[in-house]
């Protein structure tokens, strides 16, 4: 077991898979000699050459569209979008093309590919409005896609391996605040984390906090504080936001009867709305309090100045306050 960071987990998943399967290619802006702006592809160019690690032109639709073509021709491309904020130019290729290729051809064609992008922000990530967004809801709305948002190095590696081997297009969104801040021992041997399965990060009987991505760590911190007062919060990491793990959502909600859904993305019509709606529909009899949500406020993204960024970001304090509200209900 080696202790590695989150970004190293991503990097090593790609490297391992490229060694194992020569159909795997990486393409994106600055993924070559520079190794990506966050170093996620560091060393791959040297190891695999420019035919497999392709410095693309500055054109996101092309990165995804060309990767789709590679997938159609039997390869297993990994397309890197430099920041999730810059994925909208590729939206048409993702939702109109990749997501619909299998369905529209009645199963004659398929599109196995991964679209990786760093997402998220936070008070100490200085990216501001356009280097901080969490746009997963837009993709999670779309049948035909899978959407993974890992929260730990172990999950990041196991899920990325699963994503590369998946027969369908997978959006893989990596929280940039985790890249270097998290370190963890991950298995040396190959392992896969199945797409579509959530995980109970911390057991508890009083309240469920259902979340994913970097917010998992904030939720755990908040839960630890409530534990000091005897309130046991169960923290569930969804890990995948499409398909959602309905059974883990329903079972934790039925168990505790009180649910807080938390995510960094804008709240309105976000993943949390779907989770809340599922809980409201499936756990009506077991609920002891209204399903509550906490997430990004009604502003476009995280502003630059710290004083403004704090208004957007969650953090343990805000989650704690909501959990206490639920506890008191």
């Amino acid at each position, binding site marked *: 077991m080696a202790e590695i960071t989150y970004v190293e987990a991503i990097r090593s998943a790609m490297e391992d898979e490229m060694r194992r399967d020569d159909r795997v290619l990486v393409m994106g802006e600055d993924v070559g000699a520079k190794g990506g702006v966050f170093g996620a592809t560091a060393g791959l160019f040297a190891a695999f050459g420019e035919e497999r690690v392709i410095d693309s032109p500055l054109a996101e639709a092309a990165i995804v569209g060309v990767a789709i073509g*590679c997938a159609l021709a039997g390869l297993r491309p990994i397309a890197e979008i430099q920041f999730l904020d810059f994925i909208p130019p590729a939206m048409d290729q993702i939702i109109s093309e990749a997501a619909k290729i299998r369905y529209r051809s009645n199963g004659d064609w398929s599109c196995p590919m991964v679209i990786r992008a760093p997402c998220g922000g936070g008070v100490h990530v200085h990216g501001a409005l356009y280097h901080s967004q969490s746009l997963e809801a837009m993709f999670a709305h779309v049948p035909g896609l899978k959407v993974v948002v890992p929260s730990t190095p172990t999950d990041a590696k196991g899920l990325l391996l699963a994503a590369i081997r998946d027969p369908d297009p997978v959006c893989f969104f990596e929280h940039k605040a985790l890249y270097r801040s998290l370190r963890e021992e991950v298995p040396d041997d190959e392992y896969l984390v199945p797409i579509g399965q959530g995980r109970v990060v911390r057991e508890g009987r009083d309240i469920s906090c259902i979340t994913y991505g970097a917010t998992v760590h904030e939720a755990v911190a908040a839960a630890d504080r409530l534990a000091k007062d005897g309130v046991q919060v169960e923290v569930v990491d969804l890990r995948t936001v499409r398909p959602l793990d309905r059974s883990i959502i329903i079972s934790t909600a039925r168990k505790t009867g009180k649910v807080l859904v938390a995510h960094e993305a804008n709240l309105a019509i976000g993943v949390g709305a779907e989770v809340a709606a599922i809980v409201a529909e499936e756990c009506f009899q077991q609920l002891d309090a209204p399903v509550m949500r906490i997430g990004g406020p009604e502003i476009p993204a995280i502003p630059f100045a710290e004083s403004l960024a704090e208004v957007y970001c969650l953090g343990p304090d805000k989650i704690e306050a909501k959990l206490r509200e639920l506890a008191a209900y």
Partner: protein
Amino acid sequence: MVVSESAPAEMAGLSQDQLRSMYRDMVLGRLLDERILVLNRQGRAPFAISGQGHEAAQVGVGYALRRGHDWLVPYYRDLTLVLVMGMEPKDHLLAALGKAADPNSGARQMPGHYGSRAHNIVTTGSPVATQILHAVGVAQSFRYRKEDTVVVVSVGEGGSSEGDWHEGLNWAAIYHLPVVFLVENNAYAISVPQSRQMAVAHVADRAAGYGMAGAVVDGGDVLAVYRAASEAVERARSGQGPTLLEALCVRLQSHSSDDDQRRYRTAEDLADTRAHDPVVRFRTELEAAGVLLDGDADEIRQECQRLIEAAQEEADQAPVPDAASALMHVYAEA
């Protein structure tokens, strides 16, 4: 920019059999296209989109390919081209009538959305120009695997205004990929004339700016297209990179069965268009050259009609899709 000219006398080095076969494929495409429009007018096919006027361009390009080996990423006017690649009339009648056995999409898509893995025809959706990038990716894969396969991708002149078009041509030029970009320029994008689509005379005027070869060819002249396409395909196959090949076509029918081109095209324009029917032209040329003898053209026509008749009979009998199947193939079936 070289506007290739045909030299009908030499007939592009093709044998009489090949020439007759080309003519036959043009006729088959035309008659099938007409049949589909009839089904639409009868209220049996909810939607039809016609390729009439593009047959010479499509046959010229199709015959330049190694069929069964090379790939095609078509667009909705390519009925004749997908027939040349090996699809059957029945396939498209099934699609027109929304039958389960439609090999393009199982009646999930509108007719005209071609695709068939068996024939190396990539699945296509409706968004204009997205397919350009898929072809580039397909070509990148050929290059990566060191295969000598070529991919042709087609699009209208209107589609050349889309961002994807630019991004695709640029990428292909940078990597010298084995792809031929075929622009079937029929001077209209639905109702929008070329003058509102670009400020240049030819789409292929853009080739130089990408650093790739470009050619404009009379898309009503099947042999000229065949020659220009053969050059482009050879260039691609031999590792010399992509070509932007523009074929000047006419759109004989309205944009689709939902459109009426008399509302935005003048009577003169439409008359001029009709005067450029490529099927009539090739027949005249072949007759003049003694390749088609008295009665040959009629016989070809009848053979094609019989084929279409038989195909329609089958398509008529074929079942519509089972409702339950609507939920399948969103993801790989477990």
